[in-house]
């Protein structure tokens, strides 16, 4: 599914600049150590974690986009780091479970 479709259909707020691209799947985790051992390249990474570690982990696995649930917002230094490695960041007011269900309803697996 295209990132633009996900953004539009789930009402995501962009926290950084982004370019459209294919998002082949979803990974849900709040632990950097779990992300580096399990997240597939290009995925939508759904998390509550806003620490810099998250970006270090998302970059090494080549996450396609990061969505912070429950209206969590990262600090400016995290935004700067994500911009440096071109990982687009988004925010949703939904909790993780509700947002994951919305992605499922869109056909994401």
């Amino acid at each position: 599914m295209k990132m633009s479709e996900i953004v539009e259909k789930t009402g995501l707020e962009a926290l950084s600049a982004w370019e459209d691209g294919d998002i082949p799947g979803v990974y849900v985790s709040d632990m950097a150590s779990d992300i580096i051992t399990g997240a597939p390249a290009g995925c939508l990474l759904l998390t509550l974690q806003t620490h810099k570690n998250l970006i270090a982990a998302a970059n090494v696995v080549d996450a396609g986009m990061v969505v912070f649930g429950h209206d969590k917002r990262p600090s400016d230094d995290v935004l700067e780091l994500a911009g440096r490695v071109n990982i687009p960041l988004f925010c949703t007011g939904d909790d993780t479970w509700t947002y994951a269900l919305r992605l499922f309803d869109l056909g994401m697996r």
Partner: protein
Amino acid sequence: MTDVRGGFLVIEGCYHCGARSSFFSTEPVAPIDEYRDGRHIWEYLSGDQAVSFGLRCDACGQTADLSAMTGLMMSLCEDPECEIGRLALRLGGQASIYVALCGDSSHESGRCVSDEGIVALGEYFNQGRRPGRRRIVVVPCRLRSDADCCRGIVISDAGLIEL
């Protein structure tokens, strides 16, 4: 990726000489005891949740030696006095540099993450990347000029209590 184990990345410092030491602990709680080891007196600095893992080639079954690796750090170093910083300046936006950390920042023991392990880590983290994305360059921590100057973000589960 094989042999994935959860535990703690424990970082210690010697308050006499400033050396750093780290190890991966699978104890239920990160050990925090201060102790003497030769001329060092090691003091607990941090103990975040982390994972250790191995890498095995699916094609030939060979396992890379990552036994000396205690962590992986996204480098933010751009110091021209540091070999890793110079590499970052040379590569610019083409690559992200990750430093494979061994347990002994002083490298007094002469041991660090093996060359074979460094190659395997680079191949593993680049194999599925999308076209046009920054490549991942993995380097051993023995290239750092100084553990306190060559900085970065160690991948561990710091920040969980802030959730």
